[in-house]
Structures are given as C-alpha cells and as structure tokens.
C-alpha cells in the first residue's frame, strides 16, 4: 500500500475511534441521566435510541463493507485474501462461540429468574387476602345495609315531622357520618350530618341512583384518599313494595381505622404485585432483545476486529507477494515498508536487500551488455568500412555475418542475407556460385583453414580473389568459419600494367637506340659496295639492305608505339564538350569507313567535362579504330557511340559507351583485353585498348569491357566531369593500389 493509502487508513481508524468514543460516552451519560426519573427517560430515550442505532448502523456498514471486500478479493484470488479469510474465520469462531454460550445461558437465567418472581402461590395468596378483607368488610356492609333498610321502613311508616329526629337518632346510634333522605329527582328532603359545617350531604353516585330506581337496596364500599374507607348504603322508603314513593335514604358509615388500614395494606400489595406481574413478559422480552442486540453488536465488533487484525497481520505478506511479483516482472526498484522489528520485519528487510542486490547485478549486466553492444557496433562499422570482404558462415554454409564489401565483391547483397544459406543465394549469380563451389570443395576435403587465390569467371570478366578461411574459435564445432577475401583483380592488373610499362620503356630505350646505326650501316654498305658488285650480287645486296631498312622502320614503329604506351605526358586539362568531340570523331570515321553505320546517342545534359581534350580524342580514336577493325568482314557493320551523365553521390561522371555488332571479345581473353599484346586481330599491336585504359586511369576514370547479349563487343569508359573529382578519384585509386600492394 502506498503512503497516501496508509495515511488514509490511519485517518479513518482515528475518525472511527473518535466516533465510537463519543457515541459510547454520550449513550452512557444519557442512560445514566434517564434512569434517575421516568420523565427524563421519556424525553431522552429516543436520543439513546438514535445514538445506539447510529453506532450499530455504522458498525454494520463497516463490517458489511469489510466482508464484501474480503469475499471479492477471495474470489478474485487477490494475494493474501485466503489467509485473511482463514484468520477471520478462526478469530470469529474463537470470539463468537463464547459469546453465543454466554448469550444463551444468560437468556435462560433471565427467563427463569423473572418467572420465579411471579409464582402462582404468591398470586393466590394475594387473592385470598383480598377475599378475606372483603369478607371482613362485607359483614359491616351487610349490617349497615340492614340498618339503613330498617330506617327506611320506619321513615316510610312514620309521620314526616319525625323524619329529622329519626335521622339524627339513627346517625348517632349507628356512628354514621351522614344520613340523608332524598326525594324525587334527588331532591334532599332531610339530612343529618356529623359535621354541622357541611351544608349539604354528598350527592348519591349514579350506580346508587340506578339501583334505587329499581327499588333495590344499595351498599358499596368506597375507598377514600389517605387510606380511609366509607360504606355507603341506601334503601327505598317503600321497601320491596311496588308503590310509587320516590324517596330513599342514604347513609354513609366509616370503616374502623384498623380494619381500613389492613384492607388498604392488602390492596396496596395487590396493586403493586399486579403492576409488577404485568411487566413479566415485557421484562423478559426486553432483556432478551437487549441481550440479543448486545450479542449482535459484540459479534459485529468481533468480526470487524478480526478482519482488521487479520488484514493488519496479512498486509506485510501481501506486500511481499506483490513485491515478489514485481521482481518477477523485472521491477527491481520495489522496496517494501518495514512493518515492525519482528520476524516479518526481518523478512521484509531481507526482501529489500535482495531487490537491492538484484538491481545492482542487473545494472552491471546491463552495463556489460551495453559495452558488448558498443563493441559490436564498432566492429560492424569497421567491417562495413573494410574493402576486404568478410563472411562468417556455419558448417551448413548459412550466412551469419557478412559486410558490404563481401557482397560487392561477390556481386550480391550479403549484408541483409543473414540466416540464409549461401547456395540459395548463389542461384542466378555465376560468380557467387563459383565461390560457393570452391568453398564446398575445400570443406568436403576437410580443409578448415586455408589461404588461396580463387579465380571467378563471369560475364563481366574474371575476378581474382585472395581468400583466407579460418574456423571460428569456440567450444561448439558448429560455430562455423570466417572467410576473408580481397578482390585483387585490379591489383594484378596494375602489376601487369606496371610491368608492361617497364617493358615498353626498356624496349624503347634498349631497342630504339641500335636501330638507327643498323639502318645507317645497311644504307652505307649498299652505297659503298653496290657500285663494285656484279649485277647479281648487287641485286642480292640491294634486296638485303632494303629488307634491313624496312624491318628497322617496322621495328621503329613498334618501338614508337611502346614509347607512346610508356609515355606519361603532362595533362593539359581544359573544359570542352564531350558530345561535340564524339561528333567530330564520328564524322571523321564516317568519311573513312562509309560502309559502317555509325550511330550516336548523346546525352544533352552532358554540357562539358574537364579533361585533356587530345588524350580523350585518342581514347575515342582507339576505341572506334578497334571497333572498325573488328567489324571487317561483318555484312552490315554498325557502330554505336553513346554518352551519358551519371551521378554517384555528389560527384558526376560522363560515360562513353562504344558498341559494335562484330564477333565480340573472346571469352578467354575477356579478363585481359586491356593488357598489352592481348588481341585477337592478326594485324593489331595489342596496345590500343591498353593505351585507352592507361589514359582513362590517368583521368581518374574507369573502363570495362564485355560482350552484349545480342552480340558484339561493348566498351564503357567513365570519366569524372570535373577535375576535382578526377584528382580525388585518382587519389583514391592510388590509395587503393597502395593498400593492395601492402
């Protein structure tokens, strides 16, 4: 749980505690105050109810919420929920079982105790006491009733004038409080009162009037305030006869004090018992309900406490589970809060220590991996910049690593072919196919480490590779091989060029010098000896010296050609139109060879190049001458000269392609057509294309020759458009030559 969540839980707990404290104290104070008198109770009882109801409601809601969350977590398999549920179950059972036992025994005890207060014997005893009191009082009542009836008879029989005297006499004789004679509609006829201050006798009660109306005697016992009793008797004056005298006499007698006190005591006890007995069932019910509610509250509190305690106990375990999962997902930054200094705290501390070590180890591993990655990138850059082809393959000749130079040398894209077998890549690529075949032959022979020169023939000519194979180090024998190879074709050609240059220079130097003395000596011999010789000898001499002079001239021409090849005059770079130059040369040869159809295809974008105009003209002359010589004997000779502007990066190049429909280059000579003395023509010196190549390379360009698929030879010359590009290209070429030689 995050710190904010923990703070919220603490605040909730404090708020709940405060609420519970206030509620409990308030309810207790109200209860204490209300029990002091019933009036207060009536006023305060609903406040007590409201307070307790609020507390119970809050507790119920809290417990329900906790239980609902617990069930939800349990079903969702939230870590720690099972342990929490089990702990809650155990705690709840431990608390609820004793509570239920106490509750049931208390309920039983209360019911039996309350029942014992109101036994049948007590009730019967009280009833008997009441009956006894009534019996004692009934005796008096009958006596007074008979006296009253006798008085009524006397009054009915006697003269009206003697009524008052008779009433007074009777009152005194019977110790009555008052005796009165009532007439029709309750009219007082005469009365005798013990207390002369009282003006009138008491009004007869309704039940008395009703009974007298039925001409029946009346007697009643009337309890008075202060524990006194009065016996009120009444009788109609005509007794039981059915005459129409409405008069009746009413007498009130006091009950003796002792008898009244005893009767009042019996009545008081009877009433008190009745009040208490009426409370028996309500009391039992109230006690039961109160106990049940207390039980419920206690159970709710116990469950809440059990959940709270269980969650408090389980929280570190939950944190550990979540932390472990986080670590499992790679989050080593997880740090758990130390719950306490007990065993759980030690466990959490160990976990934190473990994550700290893991985090450090991962950082070190990551650092190492980054270093390896940097090295790998560096190596990749080095490999990419290498002009040497590097190819790593496994034992099944599947490409594992290849740099760009390897692809360029072998004429296919190998850098992106990682994971593909070489034989598959070699399909359709003659040069790569020969390379793969050479590797397969050596691997089949069990040769794992070798260094050899491989010659690969293709449509573009022969390429010579210096190839070295080494098995990759490692315990696994399937690690494969690394093959490093260089295209030394240009190097070999340069070496040949240099050798031929040296030969030409030496020929020019060593052969040309003796030729002149030979020619002069032959001419002198002819001049000195011819005059003195016979005609036959003269003819022999003439023919011999002429042959010597002719051969010497031929040799001089040949030496001049070699001299021209070996010559390296200073470049006279000017800017001129290549298209115009091509047009001039074509026009020249059209007039010389009208049979041949010379077609031009000039790129209008090619406005001008910076080069030595004379030497470029020589290139064109040599190429056209070479083509025209090859076209001799061809039925419809055709020659095509095309120019184009090519862009390579920021540099621009002008290309001149000369094609013919002649027999083409012989396949075996294709790789050496630019070498001196390599020619298929009977009359050629074999230096034309060699000189062309030399001039092209002096301009920083390149030249290649091949045969067109439709037949005929094709020579393509590429020259830099600007002099800066030429010098840069020449510099690069010189550097490359230096590296190859190294």
């Amino acid at each position, binding site marked *: 749980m995050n710190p904010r969540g923990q703070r919220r839980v603490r605040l909730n707990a404090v708020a709940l505690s405060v609420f519970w404290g206030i509620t409990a104290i308030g309810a207790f104070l109200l209860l204490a105050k209300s029990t002091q008198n019933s009036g207060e109770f009536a006023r305060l009882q609903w406040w007590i109810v409201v307070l307790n109801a609020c507390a119970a409601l809050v507790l119920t809601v809290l417990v329900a919420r906790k239980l609902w969350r617990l069930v939800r977590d349990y079903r969702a398999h939230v870590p720690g929920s099972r342990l929490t549920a089990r702990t809650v179950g155990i705690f709840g059972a431990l608390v609820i079982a004793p509570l239920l036992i106490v509750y049931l025994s208390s309920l039983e005890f209360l019911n039996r105790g309350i029942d014992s207060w109101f036994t049948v014997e007590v009730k019967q005893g009280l009833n008997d006491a009441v009956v006894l009191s009534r019996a004692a009082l009934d005796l008096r009542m009958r006596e007074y009733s008979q006296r009253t009836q006798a008085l009524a008879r006397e009054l009915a029989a006697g003269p009206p004038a003697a009524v008052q005297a008779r009433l007074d006499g009777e009152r005194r004789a019977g110790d009555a409080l008052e005796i009165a004679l009532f007439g029709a509609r309750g009219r007082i006829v005469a009365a005798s009162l013990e207390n002369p201050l009282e003006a009138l006798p008491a009004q007869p009660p309704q039940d008395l009037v009703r009974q007298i109306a039925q001409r029946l005697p009346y007697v009643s016992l009337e309890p008075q305030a202060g524990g006194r009793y009065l016996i009120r008797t009444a009788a109609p004056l005509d007794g039981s006869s059915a005459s129409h005298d409405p008069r009746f006499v009413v007498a009130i007698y006091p009950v003796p004090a002792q008898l009244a006190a005893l009767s009042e005591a019996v009545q008081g006890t*009877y009433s008190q018992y009745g*009040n208490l007995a009426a409370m028996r069932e309500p009391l039992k019910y*109230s006690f039961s309900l109160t106990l049940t509610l207390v039980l419920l509250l206690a159970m709710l509190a116990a469950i809440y406490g059990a959940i709270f305690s269980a969650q408090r106990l389980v929280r570190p375990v939950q944190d550990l589970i979540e932390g472990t999962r986080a670590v499992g997902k790679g989050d080593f930054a997880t740090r758990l809060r130390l719950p306490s200094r007990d065993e759980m705290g030690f466990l959490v501390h160990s976990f934190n220590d473990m994550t700290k070590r893991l985090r450090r180890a991962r950082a070190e591993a990551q650092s190492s991996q980054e270093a390896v990655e940097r090295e790998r990138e560096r190596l990749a850059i080095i490999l990419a910049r290498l002009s040497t082809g590097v190819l790593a393959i496994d034992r099944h000749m599947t490409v594992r690593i290849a740099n760009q130079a390897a692809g360029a040398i072998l004429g296919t894209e190998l850098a992106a072919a990682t994971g593909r077998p070489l034989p598959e890549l070699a399909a359709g690529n003659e040069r790569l196919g020969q390379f793969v075949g050479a590797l397969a032959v050596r691997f089949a022979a069990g040769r794992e480490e070798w260094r050899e020169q491989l010659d690969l023939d293709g449509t573009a000519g022969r390429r010579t590779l210096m190839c070295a194979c080494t098995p990759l180090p490692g315990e696994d024998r399937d690690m494969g091989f690394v093959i490093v190879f260089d295209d030394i074709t240009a190097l070999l050609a340069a070496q040949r060029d240099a050798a031929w240059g040296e030969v030409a220079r030496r020929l020019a130097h060593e052969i040309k010098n003796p030729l002149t003395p030979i020619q002069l000596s032959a001419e002198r011999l002819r001049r000195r000896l011819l005059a003195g010789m016979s005609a036959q000898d003269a003819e022999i001499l003439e023919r011999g010296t002429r042959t010597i002079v002719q051969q010497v001239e031929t040799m001089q021409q040949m030496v001049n050609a070699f001299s021209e090849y070996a010559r390296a005059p200073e470049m006279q770079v000017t800017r001129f139109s290549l298209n115009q130059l091509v047009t001039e040369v074509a026009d020249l040869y059209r007039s010389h060879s009208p049979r041949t159809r010379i077609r031009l295809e000039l790129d209008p974008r090619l406005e001008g190049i910076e080069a030595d105009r004379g030497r470029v003209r020589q290139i064109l002359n040599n190429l056209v001458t070479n083509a025209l010589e090859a076209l001799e004997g061809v039925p419809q000779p055709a020659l095509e000269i095309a120019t184009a502007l090519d862009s390579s990066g920021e540099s621009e190049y002008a290309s001149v392609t000369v094609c013919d429909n002649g027999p083409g280059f012989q396949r075996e000579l294709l790789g050496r057509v630019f070498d001196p003395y390599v020619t298929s023509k009977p009359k050629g010196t074999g230096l034309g294309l060699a000189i062309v190549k030399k001039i092209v390379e002096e301009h920083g360009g390149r030249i290649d020759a091949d045969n067109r698929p439709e037949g005929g030879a094709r020579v393509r010359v590429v020259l830099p458009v600007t002099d800066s590009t030429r010098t840069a290209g020449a510099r690069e070429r010189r550097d490359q030559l230096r590296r190859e030689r190294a």
Partner: protein
Amino acid sequence: MLRGDPARDGLIGRGLLTTLCVLTLGAGAGRAHADALDGVLEVRSAYVNIDHGVFLLHARVEYPQGPAIRKALRDGITLDFDLEVRIERERRLWFNANIVELTLHRQLSYHAVSDRYVVRDVRSGDQDTFATLDEALETLGKVDGWPILVEPQLDGGNYTISVRAGVRRGELPASLRALMFWTDDWARQSEWYTWSLPV
C-alpha cells in the same frame, strides 16, 4: 481452490441468513405483543371559556376500552391518563413561543377489596370511585373548567392551543422503565387537537 467452493459459499450464505433472521426476529418481536391499548384514543372536542380573566378548558376525550384494559386493571396495574395542553404564541419568522405547557395527570386503578374503579388526581390527591370501568372512563373523558391560563399571560398576537391525551402504564420504577424501553406497548398518545385561542 477455494473459489467457487459450494460448501464454503453455502457456509457464508447460511451465516448471513442466520444474521438476517436474528435481526428480523428482533424487529418483529416488538410487534409480537398485542397492543393492549387498541381502540380509539382521541380528543373529540375541546374549547376554552374565560371566566373572570381565567381561561377554563373543557374537553371531551375518548379513551380506549376493552377486555385487555379491564383485565389488566383487575390484575392490579395502574394506568396514567394524561391530558396535555400547550399554548403557543405564533411567530412569523421563528418557531412559535411556548406560553403554557400543562399536564392534567390522573390515575385509574381497580380497587380489589372494594371491587370499584378508582380515579385519582395525582396533583391534588382527590379521588373518585366508580362501580364500572365505563363510568370511570367516562369521568376521565370529561374535563370541565380546568384553569389553564390567565389573561395577563397574554400580550397580544395570535395564540394556538393544543390538547393531547395519553395513556400509559403507571407506577413503574424508573430502573424498570429503562428496561421496558423496547416493548412498552402500554403507552399511547392521541394526535394534537389544535385551535386558535379566542383572545
């Protein structure tokens, strides 16, 4: 796996059901007792008249009567019959001001020795006895000339007078009354009978 365990779910369900049953029984138990004071309890009519500056209240109240009350009285319990009167001065922007609040407190009991019903005025101690319960209740239901107010207590404005009758079990110790908190079905009050005081 505990998820979806029918036995465990059933146990939880039974526990919840038991709790609900206990709560329902507890709430229903209050209604399990028959209401001993069933019947009409209302102020039928009431009015005041002024006699020499004294406001006298006259009221007719119908109290519930029935075999349960008769039996309870004969078993010895005492019933309190209270008649409350309240006079308020109306205020426009605030609660009404309470001018007078009086209670006529009387008790009805059965006197077993004399077999009569006793109606006692608690304040004065005066008591009357009646041979029948009907007579006693009739007497209790008639209040005539109860002085409730004198004119000097009024200082203008509109006044309302409200009368309410109540019956409850009397002679109950306070401690037991606290325990009777939940189930005292021997206590009822009528609605207020309210009218304007004729000033």
